[in-house]
């Protein structure tokens, strides 16, 4: 494989891990809620994009629509269910598991086991006799842009400030007049919107079915575990490292070892640095906070 081939693989893996994980990371990192329905949120995004494109809406607008609608859907789910479970990590596991069952089977009932897919746009690029999908390169750019958006939201908006405060200490934030419930709701909505975006982005590259989200679930969990609670630093570093591990093992020994490698790295990381990469970075950068 050529050097560029490897770089392309790496970019591809990196984008996949980042986009798979980001919605989960935002919700887990900021709210401490493990969203087992994350895969189904992604699946919902894929359906929206596919159906909208079929209805004649241009693909990229459909994708934006996915993010928007899944975000709104997330907001509704939060108001109805998740908001009753703030601070109860393990109960939220049960509830989101129930939600995922309802969504996957509900989608099967409504649209059947599969819907017609949308082709991957933008064609391919030929370098050194090999073809590279332009759309996949774009996905890499979008993954980086998503991280940029998160940086901007959390560092430069009022919501970001409030949510960082809430993440540090809910009680202190509340005593400072932050409406923490509102922050949580918006965070969940944001996480859901990212999941919807991911679903929309990958819908043209994959088979769209009620089990669409399963393709992302393992990778997203591993990325979040390795990354730790800070959705920005954690996801970025863990996507970078895991993307490399995955691409390298995949290239040398094949797909199975690439996948196994991800899981083994995750186990080692939790054992050595339970708070993940972001925990490590925060410890180094912001000493003194744990006093």
């Amino acid at each position: 494989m050529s050097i560029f081939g490897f770089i392309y693989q790496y970019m591809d893996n990196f984008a996949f891990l980042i986009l798979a994980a980001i919605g989960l990371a935002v919700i887990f990192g900021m709210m401490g809620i493990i969203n087992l329905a994350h895969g189904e949120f992604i699946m919902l995004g894929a359906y929206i994009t596919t159906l909208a494109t079929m209805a004649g809406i241009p693909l990229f607008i459909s994708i934006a629509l996915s993010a928007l609608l899944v975000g709104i859907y997330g907001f509704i789910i939060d108001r109805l269910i998740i908001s009753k479970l703030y601070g109860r990590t393990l109960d939220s596991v049960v509830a989101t598991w129930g939600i995922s069952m309802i969504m996957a089977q509900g989608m099967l009932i409504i649209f059947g086991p599969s819907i017609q897919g949308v082709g991957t746009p933008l064609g391919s690029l030929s370098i050194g006799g090999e073809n590279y999908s332009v759309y996949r390169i774009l996905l890499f750019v979008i993954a980086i842009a998503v991280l940029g958006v998160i940086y901007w939201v959390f560092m430069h908006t009022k919501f970001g400030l409030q949510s960082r405060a809430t993440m540090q200490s809910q009680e202190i934030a509340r005593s400072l007049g932050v409406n923490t419930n509102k922050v949580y709701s918006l965070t969940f909505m944001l996480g859901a919107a990212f999941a919807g975006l991911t679903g929309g982005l990958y819908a043209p590259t994959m088979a769209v079915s009620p089990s669409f989200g399963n393709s992302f679930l393992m990778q997203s969990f591993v990325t979040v575990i390795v990354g730790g609670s800070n959705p920005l630093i954690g996801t970025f570093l863990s996507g970078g490292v895991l993307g490399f591990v995955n691409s390298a093992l995949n290239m040398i020994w094949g797909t199975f070892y690439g996948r196994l490698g991800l899981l083994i790295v995750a186990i080692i990381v939790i054992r050595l640095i339970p708070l993940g990469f972001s925990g490590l970075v925060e410890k180094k950068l912001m000493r003194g906070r744990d006093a």
Partner: protein
Amino acid sequence: MNTSKIKLNTENIVGIVMFIGLFVYPLFVSSYQVLNLSYFLSMVFLSMSLALIWGFCGIFSFGQAAFFGIGGYFYAILTMNIGISAFTPVGLIVGVLVGAAIAWVLGYFMFYGGVNDVFVGLITLCLTVVLETFMGQTAGSEWKIGEIGLGGFNGIDGIPTISFGSFMLTGINFYYFILFILLVVYVGLRYLGISKFGYTAIAIRENRERTKLFGYNVPKYQTTIFAIGGGLASLSGILYATWGSYITPSSFGLTAATLPVVLVAAAGRKNITASVIFTIAYYWFSQSLSASGSEYALVILGLGLVLVILFVPEGIVVALFKWIDQLVFSRIRKKPTIKLKEKEKVHGHSIN
């Protein structure tokens, strides 16, 4: 309060009635229903293993499915390689011990390394999925242990039933065998709840750091409990494997890993009786739904779980126990809360 006596409350009455019911059940139903209930009962051990480590000791694990699978696979490979039916009970015991030993090693690795809470959940989840990924790709003929191919996604077939000499544990015998073990384990776990060891586990669940300061070697207790849980999950896997003569990597899957957590949480994780009852009810309910061929089965199950967690977060069975307790037994027993209110006035320092 004298904890060593059996109290008259809903949980105990239901527990006793349940076991009497299970003992006489085969008299009234077809052999199919007995066989079916044997399957549900084998899965009860898996729930109990999680109720033990999570409910009692506060260790949140997605890994019980891993020990379940390890038990099933180990039993299959061992007994099928040896091929003597008289050996099967030994296979059962060794399988349980191996499950416990592996859990012990994993527990040692985690608890002595200071891994706790949700991170235990995550590490065990990864481990379970590793096992599934690994076993799923062992379809090739090069994956053999002794004479037995691991079989990849299809799993291992033709796992021998447990037999004592020429006495085969099939049908009704198998049912009573499981029921007997269930009774022993259930009584054991209930006893554990009032034993010194059980109190330590509860203390660790309530406040790990504080418990250390009372002189308890917390990692040691956690590791031990985790190992017992691993053994129980392994037992469950072995019984399941002998029930269907069959084990596959899907017993390690994401679904399999999360289901015990969901069942125990929905039942009420601090209560063994609740998880036993709820597990049986869940399997029966979901099977009936499946048998009806209804495509709404999974939707109904999911909706049920969400409702339970929203409205009865302490667990539906536990909530029911409390409700009946209040309804029936509060008239027999006097309420201690009244006394407290008076005392609070004296000291004038109520925290609420």
